[in-house]
């Protein structure tokens, strides 16, 4: 994509309102359904829409301005287009005057224009045309999105597709299944199925880029004495050594246990925030604490006290 500011014709300092206005003006002029048969309008429309998608989001705009992201965004799921249907027989439904108001006879045209057009011209209607891309959404489990999974998708027309979700798939990512969209015409290739993946939340893992975070509950004695505990990770249970004297809130980093390596992006880490669980009342613990004189008494709320 070119410079999105140039595409919309606004200065870099333009306000969000200016950008919205510029987009609306260009989009009205170049909307493909308002310009059927004009391939250039469609190209321009795609460009201004992509530019607007980037600049209308203040956060992404700021990141673009700082050079953190390039102008070419993720693959957008293109929407099906009204003009593809309206010119065909289906378009009769919206014929001006309501429904099949024909009032003319194709044979008349044959008579009138029978010899008006020279032969030898390419027949547009016979040209192979690629089928339409179809859009679907699929919700997948958190771990399936991290580790990869195959999921069956039933389409509105009753077909089923096996969607192979690659490891490290992020929420909102679009999968393209080649040739699984609408069939082509006159021997043209079928369109693609574009599947937008939604990742369902996990009860205790959350994803942050390549890293995964979770809270790991430990007992009082594990916190004080340390020792090995079993901890879940997205790729299975591992043994983790809790350092002696660990406190609630301290974080362990399990290197490489986050989102797996993919397309050259190295594997992320798993951060486990410890949470000490006292458990049910325990007489021995109670008796011990009543007689306990700490070696180094601490006031954990010291930093919250007002300073003179």
């Amino acid at each position, binding site marked *: 994509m070119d410079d999105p500011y140039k595409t919309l014709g606004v200065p870099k300092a333009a306000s969000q309102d200016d950008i919205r206005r510029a987009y609306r003006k260009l989009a009205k002029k170049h909307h493909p359904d308002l310009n*059927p048969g004009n391939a250039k309008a469609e190209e321009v429309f795609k460009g201004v829409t992509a530019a607007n998608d980037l600049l209308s989001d203040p956060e992404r705009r700021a990141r673009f301005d700082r050079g953190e992201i390039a102008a070419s965004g993720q693959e957008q799921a293109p929407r099906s287009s009204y003009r593809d249907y309206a010119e065909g027989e289906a378009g009769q439904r919206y014929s001006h005057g309501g429904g099949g108001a024909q009032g*003319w006879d194709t044979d008349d045209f044959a008579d009138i224009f029978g010899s008006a057009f020279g032969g030898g011209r390419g027949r547009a209607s016979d040209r192979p045309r690629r089928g339409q891309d179809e859009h679907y959404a699929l919700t997948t489990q958190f771990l399936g999105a991290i580790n990869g999974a195959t999921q069956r998708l039933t389409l509105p027309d009753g077909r089923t597709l096996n969607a192979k979700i690659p490891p490290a798939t992020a929420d909102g990512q679009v999968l393209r299944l080649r040739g699984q969209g609408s069939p082509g015409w006159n021997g043209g290739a079928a369109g693609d199925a574009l599947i937008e993946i939604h990742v369902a939340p996990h009860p205790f893992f959350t994803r942050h880029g390549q890293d995964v975070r979770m809270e790991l509950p430990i007992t009082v004695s594990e916190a004080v004495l340390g020792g090995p505990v079993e901890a879940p990770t997205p790729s299975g249970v591992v043994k983790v050594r809790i350092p002696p004297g660990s406190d609630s809130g301290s974080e362990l980093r399990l290197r490489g246990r986050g989102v797996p390596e993919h397309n050259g992006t190295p594997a992320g880490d798993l951060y486990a925030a410890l949470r000490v669980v006292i458990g049910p009342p325990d007489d021995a613990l109670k008796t011990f604490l009543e007689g306990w004189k700490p070696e180094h008494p601490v006031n954990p709320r010291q930093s919250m006290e007002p300073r003179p």
Partner: protein
Amino acid sequence: MITIEVLLARVPDLPLQDLERWISNDWVRPDGRAGDYAFGEIDVARVQLIQELRDRLEINETALPVVLLLLDQLYDLRRRLRNLREQAEATNS
């Protein structure tokens, strides 16, 4: 055949009342009757177009009938032109 539920699932952020109003305005013309509508692919595309014209391009519902009327006439003409061309080609071949 596409039911109203499937259509709403395929057109994110479209309130049911809006769709029902568009149908009663005759902007969208599904088969069947209220409670049992059957939409075609063209209706889904048209609903997406109306939503895009209204929400993204800010053509409000007062102006929309004029836009749709002109658009329908444009596509009428293009459809006729296409039929005409096919007719002419069939005559010549």
